[in-house]
């Protein structure tokens, strides 16, 4: 039965245990990778930094662009991503909420 998240019991010993990440968690991870990289960040760095498959990365980047949290900049035909002001504010707010939830034992 697929519940959308990975249960410890579903793993055998050969498979490394995967931790379930919510959409919010993945968004935080992507935004944090871009922030960490400074002024701009390429898709490969985001892919490795946020630990995502290519398909999921494209989908999440499109969502974040739609929400105007990140913007795409082209340099020598290569795409880079930057945090918008709205994205920076959103990331700060998420960090606060994460801390708040964490204090009550809630992780997302």
């Amino acid at each position: 039965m697929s519940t959308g998240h990975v249960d410890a019991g579903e793993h055998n010993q050969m498979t490394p245990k995967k931790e379930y990440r919510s959409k919010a968690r993945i968004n935080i991870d992507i935004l944090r990778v871009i922030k960490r990289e400074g002024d701009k960040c390429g898709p490969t760095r985001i892919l490795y930094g946020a630990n995502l498959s290519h398909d999921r990365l494209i989908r999440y980047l499109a969502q974040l662009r739609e929400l105007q949290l990140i913007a795409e900049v082209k340099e020598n035909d290569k795409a880079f991503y930057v945090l918008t002001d709205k994205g920076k504010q959103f990331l700060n707010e998420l960090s606060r909420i994460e801390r708040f939830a964490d204090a009550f034992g809630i992780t997302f």
Partner: protein
Amino acid sequence: MATLLAFSPLFMELISAIISFIIGYYALKGYRVSSEKGLLLLHFGFVILGVSMILRVITTFYVIALVREFRSPQPAVAAALTFASLIYSVAQLIAYGLFTVNYTRQAKMLGQAAIIAPFFLLRYNTYLELIAVVLLGYVAVQSMINLALKRNTEAFLVTSGFSFMFLSHLFFLFTIVEEALYSTGQITQLIGFLCLLVMLTRVSTIK
């Protein structure tokens, strides 16, 4: 001075209710951003808790006004007071039940053997206040486990908050033998909510 002292527990309850609403609001804000169900449970829990406290404050004011008007308590007043007390207790039980569900969800995710709440509920089903004490005791213990795992100031403040709230209910429970414990309970409850307010202030000032 005597009037001020008489109304101070109500004033403390009102402040506690306001803090409860603020925390509930912040939890809702968190839910809107993260879609984490635990935050929604927290929101409903604190809002219900706030509403129950406001209800008690309003009812007590109303009853005091009626008693002053008619000099002696009327049967209708006594009935209203009993009904309001019942609603207050049930609302608090729902709120603490939501906190318990939240912590049980988290405990399950962490793989802890934390399915002890139903046993408590089965054992104590006679007195609402006693169930509230048991539920809140469970919540306090779970928040202590979270503190042991996280070891940060915010988790410490939440643990202190729930522990003081648990203590306050113990004091309320023992007002049967000593009425003076009611004020002690109110003070303890207020300290608990102030701990949660300090936690919220710390969290919201993170840059």
